């Protein structure tokens, strides 16, 4: 899967979780950029991404990722 393909699926997951069809994320996107993305919604987002790509983030990864770009790096490293 290419980075672009990951983003295509990732955008769908974000749109589902935040129930907003307008959302498009990129490498620099952080929680500050999406209105409903608080610590509670973060859990749902992580789980939805895990399910979608059939991967599991570790606690270390979940606590340290700083933006969507780093998230995509981890996803790519798991599925390749």
């Amino acid at each position, binding site marked *: 899967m290419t980075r672009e393909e990951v983003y295509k699926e990732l955008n769908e*997951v974000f749109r*589902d*979780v*935040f*129930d907003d069809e307008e959302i498009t994320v990129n490498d620099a996107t952080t929680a500050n950029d999406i209105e409903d993305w608080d*610590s*509670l919604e973060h*859990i*749902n987002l992580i*789980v*939805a991404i895990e*399910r979608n790509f059939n991967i599991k983030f570790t*606690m270390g990864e*979940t*606590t340290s990722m700083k933006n969507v770009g780093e998230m995509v790096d981890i996803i790519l490293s798991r599925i390749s």
Partner: protein
Amino acid sequence: MLRELEYPFDPDFVIKKRKSLKRRLLAEDTKRIHKKIAILGGSTTHDIKDILELFLLNTGIEPEFYESEYAQYFQDVMFDNKELTSFEPDLIFIHTTNKNIREYPTLRMDKSEIDELEKNVMEQFEAMWKKIEDVYHCPVIQNNFEPVSYRLMGNMEVYDIHGKLAFINRLNERFYEYARNHENFFINDINYMASDYGLQKWADPFYWHMYKYAMTLSAIPDFSYNLANIIKSIYGKNKKAFVLDLDNTLWGGVVGDDGPENIMIGQETSMGQMYSEFQTFLKEHKDLGVLLTINSKNDNENAIAGLNRPDSVLKPEDFLVIKANWENKDKNIVDIANEINIGLDSLVFVDDNPTERNIIRTSVPEVSVPEINEPEHYMQIIDRCGFFEPTAISEDDLKRNEMYRANVQRKEIQASFDNYEDYLRTLEMHAEIMPFSPIYMSRIAQLTNKSNQFNLTTLRCSQADIENIAADSGKVTLYGKLEDKFGDNGVVSVVFGHIDEKQYDVFHIDLWLMSCRVLKRDMECAMMDTLIEKLKQKNIKTLMGYYYPTVKNKMVRDFYAGFGMEKISEDENGNTVWKLNINNYENKNNVIKVN
């Protein structure tokens, strides 16, 4: 109602799509009862609340929530949190888990120290439950404790007094003892849920350390569904009857083609054993008060021949109605509901054929249609759906099938009389009509939550409400219990109202309901006669009645007119107010002997 929220649902889908699911539920044009639910958590409850809301909305309950701050369950209750007291909850759910046990036994402790530990935990919980009972008078749902996630002593952990697992089981037994002795107290069995789900998956430490969830996020839909089942049962939203297909549902094969001797049932083959087990499961529901009926495309004689096999667990007489014919099943199901006089939304349709299931779902959407697949899983799926989740087992439940059967017999006799009053006299009816008394409080509360059709104001009351009303000297209360020569119907009618606070000779009826199982028996006349007699003793001169229309209670729109009451107002929603000078009232009941 959303299919996506019916069991077996996809938990990850429910979590992911919760926002759009909620939006769709709120866009539905359904009437829901509003309930205030306080969630007092010992760990994170955010998603539990959100998902619980979806399942409750889907069963006709519109919740409003109070959610305690993180792990403040005990403090909120014991120190009278203002926000909680002013919220005035209708129900309190205490979400504690094994994470909330502050001190577990250690190998260094002796027996008396461990007993002391148990005592301390129990004192804390019991103090909280007692406080809730005193301050809030509302139902309480309390989690039991799930098993611990590691076993220091291996297999000894469960029986050695030092075991954490042994300690948890001891505490749970104490919780159950409390539940057995307190009517408004219910256990949410997370111990069973965790094992059903798989403890290893349930207790994923990731979610505890990251988010302080006591269970994995993916288990929350199952958890919330189970919890919603208790709540819907408390508020009378349970189903009442099974509508069952025969071929490949109750037995293997097609009786019309294979012949009754060749269908798969009984102990001879593994398939036969499996269907027998399913039949036993259904038959056990009769003791819960669930009614059994049949809706099958078959010649009637073939259907009966199948059920009459000596090794068939279910016999023809186990069913209240048997529709074995070549009508469409959606027509049959409506006929069944009419014959036994219950709402379509009380029915559960079980059929192995996806086409038939789809027909019922489309043309009679009120009926619940579990998505069953392979026969070996019928039982598991129907069980987990929680259609009939009891919160109390009353005498009435055990007798319900007999009562409905007696009704069918009464209908047969009725056909042979020209004069209806003559017929009623032959029933030799005897009623007990008295003020609310302690032994009937739970049945009275149950009726206020269950009765929809013959219910003038559809006022729902918890048992605690009923107890308060009974104790209030400004109120007049009556329950009516009806017996006849075919059997005892139990408590079937409830009436109460209050004396006007300014005009002491005016009485307002707050609630008037009757179970449809005694329709057209003049029970309402006996109730009114008794009410008026009681009111005269209290020097009441004017009786005020109210009718608030709902989707289901059209049958009593002109109920008060039947007693010669005068309609004094009607608003744009059809709410009507009725008035009677009770000195002009003449007794109406000639057929029921009272008290």
